[in-house]
């Protein structure tokens, strides 16, 4: 009796609890996934989705709980046990050594064919059929680091299927893909389902969940809220409520627009900026010299006017980082001009640009945005101190601490003292410290690079509100994001970057289809 019941599930966990230090990542999660379907596991950032995937794949050993695969209990926290039972995980940021060729990437995780030495040709012959059967077109000799992100993901999925995987878990597979890539991925997953593989998708976009999943599982704060509910029995509103939960104080103030953007329903749009406003940031035919940090800019022309938010869409790694570095004065501009607040700034030093009103919310909050080991007031005081100029001027810590305290309170940062380190704050609060520093009265241009990545709903809404307020005060805002829903919701215009070029400019109402085509370079 017990066996028959257990075998109903391809993967089942009972009472799984995981804690990292004081943080409970998962609390007594018990859920079973029936075989041969596509299951979605959804939740906000920090809900425990990735931890759940890693427990299932044996990468994380839970403090308590059991894991059953195809009805048989396996040792927790042992990758080989999970793989042996047929569970494979495709990571969000892929886990293939970049210098490996595609053939080597297949081989290094394989358990077939013995351990004897191989030849290069033999290795390629060994895996060609496997890739062909999955419809992966990447060449076997190509190195992983040279592949476009879609192929890299396809190769990663093929890598996961080199053993006879019965359960395939994908952690946020759509985050790195353009719309067309998502469609291809979903077709591939449907093909796997047809061949009897159980697919578990970790997602956070409700629209995507409803598009592909047979069942939905919701995690919130490490707890199971809904377990494998049939997707046809649940609608977007219900799902959003389950994900967000009983409102935390910040989320309660979520506007309808914000909520719609989170759900991915494509919100309506506010009227555009006044056309007559002067450009506060203008790039004219800017090209940068190639450097190892990313694709160079190639004749980029772009203007951000006072009082508008310009969104920059694009698959990650298409020159967005170089664009920010060029604006900041950190990239080597080969030709073209950059104008800041009406004045030529092509050769201006980073500090001169800041003095002219340029403010940047950088891509990497924890390495570029903040010094995690420094105190809050030190992090906050960087702007006033640098702008005050004189290198050897005496500083007055007590006064700066008081100013910082007032500023952080104004920005609703949850902190105990300005003496605590920036590393002790949560992601959302840390981002607010950066906002407090960067969006001040003298700001004229705000470049926000992935400002909501990794933030929960409340903090995300807060950041959006701050950007809108900056626009309202007459700042020009350049918003770089890989989240199209976010861009659609708050941008007055959207430009698309592809391989260091501007591949298109769009005005509302935005067409997902047209922008998606521009992102992938498919001719109209």
């Amino acid at each position, binding site marked *: 009796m017990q066996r028959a019941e257990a075998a109903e599930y391809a993967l089942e966990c009972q009472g799984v609890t995981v804690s990292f230090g004081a943080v409970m990542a998962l609390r007594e999660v018990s859920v079973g996934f029936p075989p041969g379907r596509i299951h979605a596991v959804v939740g906000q950032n920090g809900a425990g989705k990735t931890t759940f995937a890693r427990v299932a794949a044996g*990468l994380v050993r839970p403090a308590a709980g059991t894991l059953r695969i195809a009805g048989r209990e396996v040792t927790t926290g042992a990758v080989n046990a999970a793989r042996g039972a047929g569970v494979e995980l495709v990571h969000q940021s892929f886990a293939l050594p970049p210098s490996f060729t595609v053939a080597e990437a297949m081989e290094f*995780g394989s358990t077939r064919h013995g351990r004897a030495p191989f030849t290069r040709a033999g290795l390629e012959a060994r895996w060609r059929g496997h890739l062909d059967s999955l419809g992966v077109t990447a060449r076997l000799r190509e190195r992983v680091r040279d592949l476009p992100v879609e192929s890299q993901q396809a190769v990663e999925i093929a890598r996961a299927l080199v053993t006879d995987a019965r359960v395939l878990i994908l952690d946020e597979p759509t985050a790195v893909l353009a719309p067309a890539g998502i469609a291809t991925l979903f077709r591939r997953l449907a093909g796997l389902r047809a061949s009897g593989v159980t697919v578990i998708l970790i997602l956070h976009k409700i629209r995507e969940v409803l598009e592909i999943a047979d069942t939905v599982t919701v995690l919130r704060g490490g707890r199971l809220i809904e377990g494998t509910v049939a997707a046809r029995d649940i609608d977007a509103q219900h799902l959003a409520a389950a994900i967000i939960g009983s409102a935390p104080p910040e989320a309660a103030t979520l506007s309808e627009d914000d909520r719609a953007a989170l759900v991915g329903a494509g919100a309506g749009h506010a009227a555009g900026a006044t056309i007559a406003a002067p450009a506060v940031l203008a790039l004219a035919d800017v090209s940068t010299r190639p450097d190892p940090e990313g694709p160079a800019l190639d004749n980029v022309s772009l203007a951000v006017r006072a009082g508008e938010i310009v969104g920059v869409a694009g698959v990650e790694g298409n020159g967005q980082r170089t664009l920010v570095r060029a604006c900041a004065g950190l990239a080597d501009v080969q030709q073209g001009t950059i104008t800041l607040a009406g004045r030529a700034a092509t050769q201006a030093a980073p500090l001169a640009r800041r003095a002219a009103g340029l403010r940047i919310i950088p891509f990497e909050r924890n390495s570029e945005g903040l010094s995690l080991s420094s105190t809050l007031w030190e992090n906050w005081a960087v702007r006033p101190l640098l702008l005050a100029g004189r290198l050897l001027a005496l500083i007055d810590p007590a006064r700066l601490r008081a100013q910082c305290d007032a500023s952080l309170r104004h920005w609703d940062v949850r902190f105990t003292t300005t003496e605590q380190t920036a590393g002790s704050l949560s992601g959302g609060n840390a981002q607010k410290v950066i906002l407090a520093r960067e969006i001040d009265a003298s700001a004229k241009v705000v470049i926000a690079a992935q400002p909501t990545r990794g933030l929960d709903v409340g903090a995300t809404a807060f950041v959006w509100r701050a950007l809108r307020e900056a626009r309202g005060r007459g700042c020009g805002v350049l918003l770089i994001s890989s989240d199209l829903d976010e861009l659609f919701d708050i941008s007055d215009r959207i430009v698309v970057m592809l391989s260091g070029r501007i591949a298109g400019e769009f005005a509302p109402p935005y067409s997902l289809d047209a922008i998606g085509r521009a992102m992938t370079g498919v001719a109209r």
Partner: protein
Amino acid sequence: MNDLIALILGSGTPLVYAAMAGVLAQRAGIWHLGLEGLMIAGACAAVLVTSAAGSLLAGLGVAIAVCVLGSALLWVVIEKLKANPIIAGLGLTGLGLGGTDLAVQAVFDSEATVRSEIGLPRLGAAFGPYAHLSVLVLAMPVVVFALWVLLRRTRFGLQLAACGEHPFAARSVGVSPPRMRLVALLLGGVLCALAGAELALGSLQLFSVGMTAGRGFMAFAAVIFGAGHPVGAAFAALFFSVVEALGIKAQLLLGNALPPDLLLALPYAATVAGVWLSGRLRGGGQSSGAFAELRDY
């Protein structure tokens, strides 16, 4: 010319063996700066035990045991005590240099040089001008080729490279990076023992304090010059010994026209130039997989 080649092979072989140990560690993700210490420990153990026991096999066996133990110690310090591998490697080098000095003084009072009646077997008259080279010189290309096959053409080699380049990727397929690093270091210990034995028993048949004279660091430089590839590192090591041999030749030809110290410094200068050059050729700034491990959680 044959003399010169014999000279290069004789002085280059210990470098190549030590460089192979460095390559193994490098691919597993450890910058092995303990090569110098392991090499001199191997040389010391080989000479002391061979001369005391009168048996070459005993000498080699103890040398290998000592170097493997030293490597295991390095692994414990790096993986279990979480020390910085570079500092730990330098520590091992200090331990090797100081420990052998102490051992020689303890056993032979103040003598700084120990001779051995027995050396490694020679190639013999059939090899003409190369007769005085040891069998380890002949085995060297075989070892390099075997290591190339192991690292580049087996799944073990791929898994080892994954541990160095992207440890999380290795963990995701059930490979334990610490365990792979242990294997790489222990295997490297055996190679370092051979390097030390060749250095001390190959042609000289003596051990003197500090006789490695930075060769372990040159071997490490060869690893970097050779981009962690066994064949590349072997050629880099031989290149360094070519420069060394040319320096000796120049000294013989020029007499005192040039200060001899300058010529003796040549191989070290070549090492620095080689490492700089390899950095330039590869465009520098290759991001290592270590970042990936940071993303683990």
